[in-house]
């Protein structure tokens, strides 16, 4: 207990001590430009995909930059139905709206229509990546009170880290030893009067304490540049896997001198940026002119970073020049970058409503990270493995979007089918199911019975078409379902799936 009080005291003291000199200006700039964001959001329920979802309220932070724009985290505003912002200097709450959300890098931009709100704001400027061991200040509204709160931390690590909001992305992130708590999210991290990052996530679990993460300015600048054209595009991906080329026997096998350069490509993802250009077994020696060390790093501004960082800063349609050692010859290759749509299954979805098809109490849903999150505890091994191996085994080439019989709504017409929930659908009425879009047309096929077959050694589900037509109104009334299906994909793109089991291209 004693030591806790002591620590609390220290936290209060620090900002006061540094209140002289430069810190003065920075704090007053923060006071003018850091905003508290109150959000009421709705989260879809993938167990009941037809429902509008649960409503919850939360608080986050943001900050005003030039052109009356407010930057915050994507996870602060995702699913927002109502948004208000408030400044220290002005107790009024102003309604705001989301202009851009980038879930893959956890950044968003919002704006307030009422220009009154911006009176007295001074537009925070962005700085560069802070040095290791330098001190930064975190501004936000963490749990415990309503006033602007400042904590300080030391830059402990600059490295790739996973961005938990998206569920699959990793980008550059900066670790600081100030804790990031709920309410800090979206707030600026400042040094020398400039924003050097956006506070966005803490460390989950009991293994580490006083660890917080911020999004560094290269990622923020990329976001701001991306939305200049009025829309946010996804990050692009080189879509290869590689292995360090450190082993002497391995280097000898690939006929590379012992110069500490180059990595071996171990997989090239079908439909990805490098598909058709790079091959398994190529030795990658340079990227955009930067030599690649045998551990996969390149020197960027004197700092070692993973070779992917070159690609990270680019946009869809940009090219990357590669030097490749193939068949004992040096070759120059150029790839055109694109997002890795085939892995979009692993991305948590926030805005778009869940898609489904209801058929006689049987609910079909595409396999998504969101569905998996609600099914994981009950998922049988085959479903789990389909999810786990989908990317690794490039299952998307055949099945861009596995369809799951996610639940069976009990009804007198389907009493024998309830045990089939959680199965991966293989075919309906003889038609192979590759995406959710295949389900409704396939249900029309065949004779008076619909036969649904699953992966593995499960029995088929057999329903009488006439009976299904009869029971649908009853089931929809009983379970409060207003529409029998929602299949529009919206703006999201899936893999093309240009391959089938016989190896014949379609």
């Amino acid at each position, binding site marked *: 207990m004693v030591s806790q009080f002591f620590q609390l005291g220290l936290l209060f003291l620090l900002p006061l001590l540094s209140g002289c000199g430069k810190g003065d200006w920075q704090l007053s700039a923060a006071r003018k430009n850091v905003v508290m964001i109150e959000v009421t959001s709705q989260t879809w329920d993938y167990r009941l995909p037809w429902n509008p979802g649960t409503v919850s309220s939360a608080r986050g932070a943001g900050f005003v930059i030039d052109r009356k724009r407010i930057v915050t985290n994507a996870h602060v505003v995702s699913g927002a139905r109502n948004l208000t912002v408030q400044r220290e200097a002005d107790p009024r709450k102003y309604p705001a709206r989301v202009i851009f959300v980038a879930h893959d890098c956890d950044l968003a931009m919002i704006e307030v229509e009422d220009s009154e709100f911006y009176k007295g704001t001074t537009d925070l400027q962005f700085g560069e990546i802070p040095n290791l061991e330098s001190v930064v200040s975190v501004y936000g509204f963490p749990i415990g009170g309503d006033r602007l709160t400042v904590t300080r931390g030391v830059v402990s690590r600059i490295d790739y880290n996973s961005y938990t909001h998206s569920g699959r992305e990793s980008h550059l992130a900066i670790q600081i030893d100030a804790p990031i708590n709920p309410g800090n999210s979206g707030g600026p991290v400042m040094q020398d009067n400039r924003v050097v990052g956006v506070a966005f996530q803490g460390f989950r679990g009991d293994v580490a304490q006083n660890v917080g993460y911020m999004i560094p300015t290269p990622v923020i600048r990329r976001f701001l540049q991306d939305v200049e054209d009025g829309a946010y595009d996804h990050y692009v991906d080189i879509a290869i896997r590689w292995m360090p080329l450190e082993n002497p026997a391995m280097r000898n096998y690939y006929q590379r001198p012992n110069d500490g350069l180059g990595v071996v490509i171990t997989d090239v993802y079908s439909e990805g940026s490098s598909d058709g250009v790079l091959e398994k077994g190529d030795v990658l020696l340079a990227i955009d002119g930067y030599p690649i060390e045998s551990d996969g790093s390149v020197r960027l501004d004197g700092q070692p970073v993973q070779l992917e960082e070159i690609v990270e800063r680019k946009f869809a349609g940009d090219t990357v020049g590669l030097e490749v050692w193939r068949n004992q010859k040096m070759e120059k290759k150029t790839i055109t970058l694109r997002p890795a749509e085939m892995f979009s299954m692993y991305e948590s979805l926030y805005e778009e409503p869940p898609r489904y098809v209801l058929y006689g109490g049987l609910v079909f849903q595409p396999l998504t990270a969101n569905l998996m999150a609600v099914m994981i505890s009950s998922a049988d091994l085959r479903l789990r493995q389909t999810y786990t191996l989908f990317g690794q085994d490039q299952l998307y080439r055949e099945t861009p979007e596995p369809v799951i019989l996610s639940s069976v709504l009990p009804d007198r017409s389907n009493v024998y089918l309830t045990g089939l929930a959680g199965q991966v659908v293989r075919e309906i009425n003889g038609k192979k199911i590759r995406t959710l879009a295949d389900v409704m047309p396939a249900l029309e096929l065949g004779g008076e019975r619909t036969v649904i077959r699953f992966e593995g050694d499960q029995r088929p*589900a*057999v329903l009488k078409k006439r009976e299904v037509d009869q029971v649908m109104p009853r089931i929809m009334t009983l379970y409060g379902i207003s529409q029998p299906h929602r299949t529009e994909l919206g703006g999201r793109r899936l893999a093309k799936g240009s391959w089938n089991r016989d190896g014949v291209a379609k």
Partner: protein
Amino acid sequence: MKHFGIIFVFLAMAGLLCAEEDISRGSLVRVRASIQPYDQFRPWQKKSPFGLNGTGVVLPGGKVLATAALVANRTEVGLEKPGSAEKCAAEVVAIDYEANLALLQPVDRNFLKGFSGLALGPALRAGDKGEVWQLERNGEMLRNQAEILSTGVGRYPSDEAGFLVYGVRVSLPKRDDSYTLPLLKDGQLVGMMMGYDRDSQEGSAIPVPMIEHFLKDAADGKYEGFPVLGVSWSPLRDPNLREEVQAPKSGGFLLTRVNPRGTAGRAGLREGDVLISVDGFKLDEDGNYRDPLYGPTAVGNLIRTRPTVGSPAKFRISRGGKEMELTGTYDRRARDEVAIPTLQFDQAPKYFVVGGLVFQELTGAYLQEWGNKWSERAPQRLVEYFTFQQDKRPDPEKKVIFLSQVLPSPITLGYQQLSGLVLVKLNGKEIHDLAELAKCIDETKTGDLVFEFRDEPGKLVLRAEDLPAVSEKIGQAYGLPALRRL
């Protein structure tokens, strides 16, 4: 509720007081097993040894019946007479891990002289009363009143399909490390307890028909085991499904997968067939037959406990609406002839260390070493091969070889972090078992050894000429007693 419990204990005590000296002294022995399982993660060594004590039943003729679980992974088994510390080593004459039964024999054939042994009694039904016998520390007998709650097909600790099992209500004080205890009725052996839950005071017992089957099989010295059908099936109650598969009006269940090597597959049964009867016993839509003694009972008992390996099998099926009869022979190839064995007690895991790369053959035992949540924690590719081997590896000769770990050495630089990788080829040649891998490597004296794996990183390379010197050093550095067990 509590009062009942107390009364119950008193009843048990009363039972103890009227113990018949002769029967107890001549029928039970203490089984002391010293157990030391192999370490699947370090296949060249064993784990810490520990001891297990249980109760064995002396059979007429001087052999001793115990559960297989009591003596699994044993280094030594001994028998001890109740009431005295007189001991004798024992050998395991027959053991069946699926049926959870073991037959022991004292090394000194005269050790149990004077023991009359327990004869086998009749099969019991739900509601029948019996006794579970325990040995006190001083050799006195504790006779606990028991009641059969249920008879039906249930899960055995090391079996996948299920056998007949008695649900037993009995209040057992803790005496030994194991609840391997005999269940008796009228002085005859009618079951072996194999599990017990102290909270619910309910346990499970291996019923006498299983014991009979086991002893009969073991009698000729060549133990064959319980037959299996080798199918996956689904109940066939759903009228829509019945219509779709053109099932007869009533009865029968749907075969959803048939292992071509199994009893059913060899008799000509196929996926999609409706199995209507086995050996003249009609099967209902839920997979039950009507047992003369137990009433409706799961088909597993009909197929596994009743017939023996090698006896003729007769199936009546409906295929595409036509009924037909198929005949075959009961066997257990569907269980034994698999690429990845499910059970592996007592057996030393195979391994092969080359230049620091450790290769093993995939077994269920290896995966279970990952703990209760092995299917989540073990490398997912290995889980996939194991769980869906019926989908993927019908050929039992094609074992799954995988790189289990890398012992860092000068020539494994850059490979240290790799593990759980399934090996597909060596120098372009497909490899089907560990001995083949060792042979190929031994025969390559110079040049590259290119290991190709199912997953990333795809290929690893070692130089053959580096191996002799490095292998010797690795053996010394890591204290490996041997670099291979094939």
